Every structure is written in C-alpha cells, then in structure tokens.
C-alpha cells in the first residue's frame, strides 16, 4: 500500500477553482442588465429547448452558464424551493436574496466537499422591484461566493471584457431596445481585440422581468418577430408589442 501524496488544502482548493473556471470558460456568455421597466437577460444560445435563462418565481429569474445538467439541477431545485416557500408562507415571502443564499450554501458545500466534484457553473439570480432602485442582481460563482451586482453583470467565458464594456455603455433608464443592443454588442465582441461577430436573433435567447406587466408573473421570453423588431432598433414597434402584452 503506497502512501498518498500530501496536497496542501490551499493547493486542493486552488485546483478545484481552476477546474471549475476552465469548465465555465468553455461556454458562451450570458448578460443581465437593468433597463427602465425591469431587467433583461440575454444569452448566446442556439438551442430553443435547452434554456440558459428561466423563470423561478413571480419576480425572480435565473440565468446560468457552464455545465447544462448541473445548472438545470440547480434551476429545478430553485423552482422547488421557491414554490414550497411560497406555499408554506406567502408569495411575497419568496425573495431573490433568500434564493441566492440557498444557492451559495449549496455551491459552497459541494465545492469544499472532497467526495463531490465542484460544479462548473456560474449563476445569476435577479429580482425585479417596484422601482429601478429595488432591482436586485446576484452573481454566484462555483465556490459559493455571492456578489451583489449593480445594474449589469456578465457571466461565462469572456465575462470580464464584456463586463467592462457594459460598464462603459450602461446608463439608468434605458429603453429595452437600447439595453438589448448593448447586451448583444457586448456578447459579440472579441475579447482578444479582433473583429466583432454578428449575432442573429436565432442565436440569442432573450427574456425580461418586466415590472409593468399586469400579471403576477413578471417573467416573459422575447421571441420571434418581437425580438427581431427590438434588435433592428425599432423602439416604437417594440413598445407597442409590449403595451399590447401588458394590457392582456
């Protein structure tokens, strides 16, 4: 029986962090940013069936990058947690802060447990408030850290360069079309300074948490012709779409 090599705890954690980071870097990024009426989620995703952005509860949505089966599990766990909490207490008692907390504990425990491999995922949990001041965006990393973000965040492969681009361009009270354009420009940039790619509506998954929505559930996917109109910068037509939707 050979004696196992000694690995220092620092080294073990650094290796696990590196492993998770590499897994995440392989995937395309997701951008989340606030606009006048709420929060918009933009993911580069060619699949119509496998979502990176999803509804969790009335005012809460979820975006993720990395390993699909892992973040899908976390998404389902989040929906179950939110629904159970809302059923046991009241719908108003389900908050993004509570959910981010549970995710942080879950990811953190998995990250530091020797028996499990670390999750290769990064998450965003966001909640739309009554006004722009109350919007909340939380970013979660594989080691279970939570970062409370203001106004915008990018996760995934080239999140740093996209994040700094969003920081230069984002301003409060933007319309949806403008916010969407900034998000798409950010996703299309080449982090190595090369020419930007062109992203078509078919390559994008877009959803909003819209505080103006009449329904209790504020989450809505933006699909098809509405997405095309918004991307072509037709703010008025898109706003009409939105108004028709809100009055339903």
């Amino acid at each position: 029986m050979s004696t196992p090599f000694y690995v220092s705890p620092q080294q073990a954690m650094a290796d696990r962090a590196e492993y998770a980071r590499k897994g995440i870097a392989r995937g395309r990024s997701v951008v989340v940013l606030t606009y006048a009426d709420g929060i918009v989620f933009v993911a580069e995703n060619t699949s119509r069936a496998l979502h990176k952005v999803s509804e969790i509860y009335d005012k809460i949505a979820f975006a993720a990058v990395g390993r699909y089966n892992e973040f899908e599990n976390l998404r389902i766990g989040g929906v179950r947690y939110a629904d159970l909490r809302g059923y046991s207490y009241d719908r108003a008692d389900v908050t993004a802060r509570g959910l981010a907390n549970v995710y942080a504990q879950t990811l953190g425990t998995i990250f530091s447990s020797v028996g499990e491999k670390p999750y290769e995922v990064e998450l965003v949990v966001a909640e739309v408030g009554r006004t722009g001041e109350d919007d909340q965006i939380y970013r979660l990393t594989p080691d279970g850290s939570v970062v409370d973000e203001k106004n915008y965040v990018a996760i995934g492969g080239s999140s740093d360069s996209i994040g700094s681009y969003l920081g230069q361009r984002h301003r409060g009270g933007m319309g949806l079309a403008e916010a969407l354009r900034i998000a798409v420009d950010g996703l299309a940039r080449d982090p190595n300074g090369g020419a930007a790619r062109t992203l078509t509506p078919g390559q994008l998954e877009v959803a909003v948490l819209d505080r103006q929505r009449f329904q209790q559930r504020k989450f809505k996917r933006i699909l098809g012709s509405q997405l095309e109109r918004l991307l072509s910068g037709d703010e008025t037509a898109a706003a009409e779409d939105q108004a028709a939707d809100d009055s339903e």
Partner: protein
Amino acid sequence: MEANLTGTGRLPAAFLTPGSSSFLDFLSAHQPELLPGRRTLPEGLTVEAPHGTTIVSAVFDGGVVIAGDRRATMGNVIAQRDIEKVFPADEYSAVGIAGTAGLAVEMVRLFQLELEHYEKIEGTVLSLEGKANRLTTMIRSNLAMAMQGLAVVPIFAGYDLDLGRGRIFTYDVTGGRSEERGFAATGSGSVFARGSMKKLYRDDLTAEQAATLAVQALYDAADDDSATGGPDLARKIFPIVSVITEDGFERLSEERVSQIAVSITDQRREHPNGPQAPLL
C-alpha cells in the same frame, strides 16, 4: 431531512434530484404533512366546518363561463357572506369549489401551484385533459377526509387550445371525473341550478348571455336552497362570474356582475319564478 425553508443551509438532495415535474409528487415525498388530505382524524368522528355550496358552469360559442354564489354555511348558520369559490387555475382554466371551504381553498392553492410548477419545470403547459387529471389525483387523496364529512367537489372549466372550445369537467368525492356537455353544476343548490339551466340553455349563447344564464341559475338555486346565497343588494355582494376564452381567464368586474344581477332581480319582481319557457 429538514425542509430548510429558513433560507440558510444547502438545498437537500431531494430538491436537486431530477425526475418529477409535479409539485404534488415532490411534496408527497418531501413534506407530506403539508398536503391538505394528509391529516388523520379520529375514527368515527365527523367534523363540522363551513361549507361552500353552489357552482355553475356553461359552455358558450368560443369559451366557457363558471360562476359561484358567495355563501358559506355551517349547519343552519351563515358562516360567511362573501366567500370566493371560483379561482383561476392558470391562464386558460378555472376551478370552482363546493364542499368544505377551508380544505377546498387549500386544495385550489395547491392545484394552481401544481400547474405553474409544471409549466416552469417543463417549459410547456399541460393539456386541458392533463390539468383535469391532476385535479383527480388531488381529490382522490382526500377521500378519507370526505368520509368524515370534509368533502370537496369541484368543477373544472377551461378553454382547450388544441380543440378551440370551452370544456367542463365535474368530479365526485372519489375523484371520478366526467366531462359535461353544455352546462354543469355542483354543490347543494346544484339540483335547482341544473333545472334552471336546462330550461334556459341554448348552444348558440354569447359570452354575455352565458354569464346571465349562470347568474339566473344561481338565483334559482338560492331561491330553493338555504345554503346558497342570492345576490345581496343591500351589501352589494354579487356572485363571482369568470369567463375563459382564447384570450385567457377573465373575472368579470363587480360592476358588470352587479348590472346582470340587478336586471335579473328587477325582472323577478314581476315574475318571481324567472323567465318562462314555452310549453311545447
């Protein structure tokens, strides 16, 4: 395993186990004590609790209307004058409940959640038949309670997007479900409501007429059944009337329902038995 609803600690393994898209199944496995039908009562005892009574529903061209009176009774006492018994189940369906009010309201909350949960997990909406079946499951699990006097007997009405028409399902205490043609009623005043609708129902009704039909039927039920409340003009408490069409669920405003109820009440002053059908 702790339910862990305090917002601290990691998600228990059950939460992260893929598989069921049903919130009911999840709850049965994880926290069965939260299910409405899981309470055990002492043998041979019946419990008296407020009861909700009459629900009526009718299909019209392009949708379905479902309505309920506002009275809950306990024995000979009126327990509540303004109880709500008709609820949206999701965007295209509604459920109206007769039976033990407390249990029924809890069941409706769980049913709404079941449909929403499925939609969020799966990313698609259940078929109308599928929704009706989920309700069957819930009522079936309540049979033991029903035996001890705590029955819940709902009507489920919805717009079937695949078939492009309104549909109505009724249930018995065992969860047995049957689809009704045209119109249906449940609860203690349902006998009179059905008789009333039999004489008034036509299959070319508009949404407006179907709403009037429902309020007429509830008026007739209240006329002959002490547990069903008629329109309360003094307190301005009127039936709840909801309409489901291709555009989704809509609860008629109190103003609209009061107009219908007032015009019916005015007519009944002239003809207390309501509209008269030809003999032949």
